[in-house]
């Protein structure tokens, strides 16, 4: 069953088991209402999240990706989120050059006790994705846009074969 057309967008979350997944549980236990778009994939640690998963998800057609791990210094595995922070930040800054709005990906830290914070994160991020709308897709670039780019590259003219 696809996301509810017109109502939901495709948002994928990657959450570490120990903190943020627990934080999402805490939000559930506390009955903190949240938008329904997000689908959570549980991983042991934010350090397990290869930035390529996020790239793959976004290029594959998701409208947004949210990653959440333990607060820095609070990683169950001591160091996972420190590595994650560097890698995810690099990815976040890399996305725009690919043509992906960096607002479609965010990462944050939510502890197992921060149910309310999780509610806020989900709500704000979902709103952010809805503001951006459905993600444009690489395999469905509008022909006019493509022609415009082709024209611009053609005018550059330096790479014409003899």
């Amino acid at each position, binding site marked *: 069953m696809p996301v509810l057309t017109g109502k939901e967008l495709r948002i994928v979350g990657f959450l570490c088991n120990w903190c943020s997944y627990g934080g999402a549980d805490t939000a559930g236990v506390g009955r903190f209402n949240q938008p329904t778009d997000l689908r959570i994939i549980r991983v042991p640690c934010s350090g397990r999240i290869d930035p390529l998963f996020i790239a793959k998800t976004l290029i594959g057609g998701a409208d947004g990706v949210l990653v959440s791990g333990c607060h820095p210094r609070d990683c169950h595995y001591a160091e996972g989120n420190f590595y994650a922070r560097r890698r995810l930040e690099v990815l976040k800054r890399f996305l725009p050059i690919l043509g992906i709005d960096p607002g479609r990906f965010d990462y944050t830290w939510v502890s197992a006790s921060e149910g309310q914070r999780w509610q806020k994160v989900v709500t704000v991020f979902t709103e952010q994705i809805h503001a951006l709308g459905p993600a444009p897709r690489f395999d469905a670039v509008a022909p006019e846009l493509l022609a415009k780019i082709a024209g611009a*590259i*053609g005018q550059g003219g*330096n*790479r*014409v*074969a*003899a």
Partner: protein
Amino acid sequence: MAAKYISREKLPEWLKALAAERRVLVPVEEGGSVVFRAYDPARAPVFGSDATAPPKGAVFPASQELFSYACGKEGEDANPTLKLEAHTEATPTVVFGSKPCGARGFLIFDRVYMGKKYPDPYYIAAREATVFVTMACDRVENTCFCHWVGSGPADAAGSDLLLTPVDGGYLVEAVSDKGAPFLDSPVLADGAGKTAEAEAVKAKAREALGEAPDIADAPKALLGLFDDLEFWRDQSDKCVSCGACTYLCPTCYCFSITDEGAGLAGKRVRSWDACMHFQFTLEASGHNPRPTKAHRLKNRVGHKFSYYPTLHDGLIACCGCGRCVKSCPVSVDIREIVQNAVAKAKA
């Protein structure tokens, strides 16, 4: 059949007429490379030089769905139903403006995919639906060596129509039964007066290539060097094991098959494969009979100049277009390797 003539100015008119009825692929410039794309009057075709990538994909796409499948289930424990769907039908296509070597490549394909033993319905359909209008060369490049492999700048083998550049336009000749009806186009004028000039153009180009070396001993020589790994190490030292040479080769026909499933549905995909890649012969156990690039380059050269000709009446599995030389990131030169092999065998 009488040759026709078309002026450069009239060419778009002819292309438009052709495109009205079928897919027409022409070489166009894209980001510095020349590739075959559907004809678009707004984009001027590039006929001057050989395309970066040959029109191989017109008949043998880089990847192609062989069939799709969908499993159906009705409730628990019911036997799943399986629905297969295969599409072999091909789009009628004209490949317009390739060099003759680009079309000649399919002669090597034909023997594999249209033979009696394993006829390939996808290939056969596409091959039969495609007409090649090639353009004879009026100049040659340092990487050209079609004359080594029994071809030449105006080789009609594999083509259906042959255009030869003459003053102001092109002489148009039908060089196959499939090509003949195309001469009826009202856009074409009589070409009788241009034949001589065209012949001169062809001869001049052929002459520019010079004499081809004698590589008649290559099949034997290469086979004889099969176990000489040091020779192959020396030849392959600089090779980086990429697939540029094979994917750009008009005669390389190898493929891989993978299944891509999503939930209960999926498809079987055939995609180009390259014998220069480690994975080409990688076995499920992890063993690889061609573990090094020396093994793999040996295969590539050996296949083209020895194993294939031995199986197929001496036909060399190379059209001499020179793309493998020109596009190689490190300028590995297949001509040099063949010559080295012949020389080594002589010695």
